[in-house]
């Protein structure tokens, strides 16, 4: 939780913490920053092959990583919830068709699909969000559907239907409020997956070329040969940031899941 707060704050306060101009090689030249500078030479984190300070990239990178993670999750959760609720609630042919579709998308390997989508759509921030969003929804859809089915079984829905309530009324009054907590817990667990996906796509060069993200930093450092130069200050921090954010979202998500279902709390509790 605390770690998350720090990262969100850093992303929001990026202009205060770092200088956006430092993200451009031309500035680095103008300001005469040394290239391949270790943290000892130029604090706090040294510079890359073009003399751009790592610190500023890291701070601005958090914006992209968090934005993509959260925005893609919103898309995935909306699609997943709609498919799950409609399928589970309406039943019949609609449900069969949607379940099949979910199954298909579940089986298609995620990264290859995201790669072809990103390659076709072209690299931009919106497209990355879209690609991750439309490839991440099947898990949510399946979860929500089974939850809706079990709620439907419950007596109170039957009773309000018997009293002449419309389908929309039941959906709004009973089904949606009951699945909301699950949706939120699931969203918290989808964000880390989305962030990892963004990192992988950016590493493959499919990120927005005009924005710095942790994944694109790793890509830059890899293609500039930072490994051979042993420029650890370049590729170590972005990786650690990804792990920290992903880890905290995962732990918060598992904790939420546990609060919703005490049986799960037992089985997923993680020592800290």
């Amino acid at each position: 939780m605390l770690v998350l707060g720090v990262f969100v704050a850093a992303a929001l306060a990026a202009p205060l913490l770092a200088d956006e101009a430092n993200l451009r090689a031309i500035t680095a030249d103008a300001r005469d920053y040394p290239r391949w500078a270790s943290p000892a030479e130029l604090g706090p984190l040294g510079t890359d092959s073009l003399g751009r300070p790592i610190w500023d990239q890291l701070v601005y990178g958090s914006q992209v990583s968090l934005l993509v993670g959260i925005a893609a999750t919103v898309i995935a959760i909306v699609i997943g919830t709609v498919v799950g609720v409609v399928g589970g609630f309406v039943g019949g042919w609609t449900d069969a068709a949607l379940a099949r579709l979910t199954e298909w998308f579940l089986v298609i390997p995620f990264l290859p699909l995201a790669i072809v989508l990103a390659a076709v759509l072209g690299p931009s921030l919106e497209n990355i969000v879209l690609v991750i969003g439309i490839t991440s929804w099947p898990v949510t859809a399946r979860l929500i559907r089974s939850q809706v089915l079990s709620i439907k079984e419950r007596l109170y829905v039957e009773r309000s239907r018997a009293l002449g309530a419309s389908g929309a009324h039941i959906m709004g009054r009973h089904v949606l409020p009951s699945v909301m907590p699950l949706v939120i817990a699931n969203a918290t667990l989808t964000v880390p997956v989305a962030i990892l996906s963004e990192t992988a796509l950016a590493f493959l060069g499919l990120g927005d070329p005009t924005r710095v993200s942790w994944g694109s930093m790793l890509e830059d450092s890899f293609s500039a040969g930072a490994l051979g130069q042993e420029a650890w200050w370049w590729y170590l921090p972005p990786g650690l940031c990804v792990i920290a954010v992903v880890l905290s979202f995962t732990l918060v998500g598992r904790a939420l899941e546990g609060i919703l279902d005490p049986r799960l709390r037992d089985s997923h509790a993680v020592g800290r």
Partner: protein
Amino acid sequence: MTARLVAGKVLGALGTLAFVVVFNFFLFRVVESNPVATLYRGRNLTDAQREELTRQFGLDGSKLEQFWRYMEQTLQLNFGRSYATNQPVIDEIWAATPQTLALVGTSTVLAMAIGLAMGVVAGWRRGTAHDRVLTGISIVTWSTPEFWLGMLLLTVFAVDLGLFPTGGISDPSGPDGGLGELLDQAHHMALPCLTLTIAYLGEYALIMRSSIIDVAREDYLTLARAKGLRDAQVRDRHALRNALLPSTTLIALSFGFVLSGAITVETVFSWPGLGLLTYESLRGPDLPMLQGLFLLFSAAVIVFNLAAELLYPYLDPRVRAR
């Protein structure tokens, strides 16, 4: 299991495959109505070049014509020629497949063996220090981008310590043929394999842990204990197999993730497999190659899932009887 059930499952898998193939068509020809323009945006093409490329990609004629031609070619495993090398896509793919199979196969087996064992121990001793440490490791490795892990291992073991080669599949000055060459290749594969193993054992451990915890409540384990079996015997003879059952489908699905991981890890270690091929095709971008690779990756996961479903009845007598 009856022949009818097998046939049903195979048909289901074929249905999924057909969906992927159709989806692929829509992706490249309908969503993006003019791939030529997209791919060469920013480059000046003459009209003649544009026409030639359009024909080359099979984009002339009506959408329906295109669809039939596409289906026909796909069924013959003809994905066109690579834009980069002008070789048939399928040849390039077959050439890269053995390397990926070796890498992904070895690391999947290792990650499964280690991860499942970790999950069993953690779940069986839930809440203890063992559990906390093992689950902690699992979640951290799960959270780590696999290619970044690869970069770290590469720096430490190849660059700093010089214990392993930094990339590729063989040493050009190394031995040719026979056992020597094989050992040299294994030496090159060690680091990427280690990377994928570490990156994915957490996934298996977490799946197995929650499965074991579910099983641990079962009455037949109490009975097994009352019989006088040792704790480890109760776990290995009675809990393990029952816990593996619900994990089978999840493990099969996770195979897709390992393949995805292979794309970035092969890139880091320049391992000449399908992953590196994908990475290189993206540079172009080499559209026919990407399509072929996407279809192949999807087919691989579908086949893997089918295998898991066909295997399931052998693990669970309750399903076999039906």
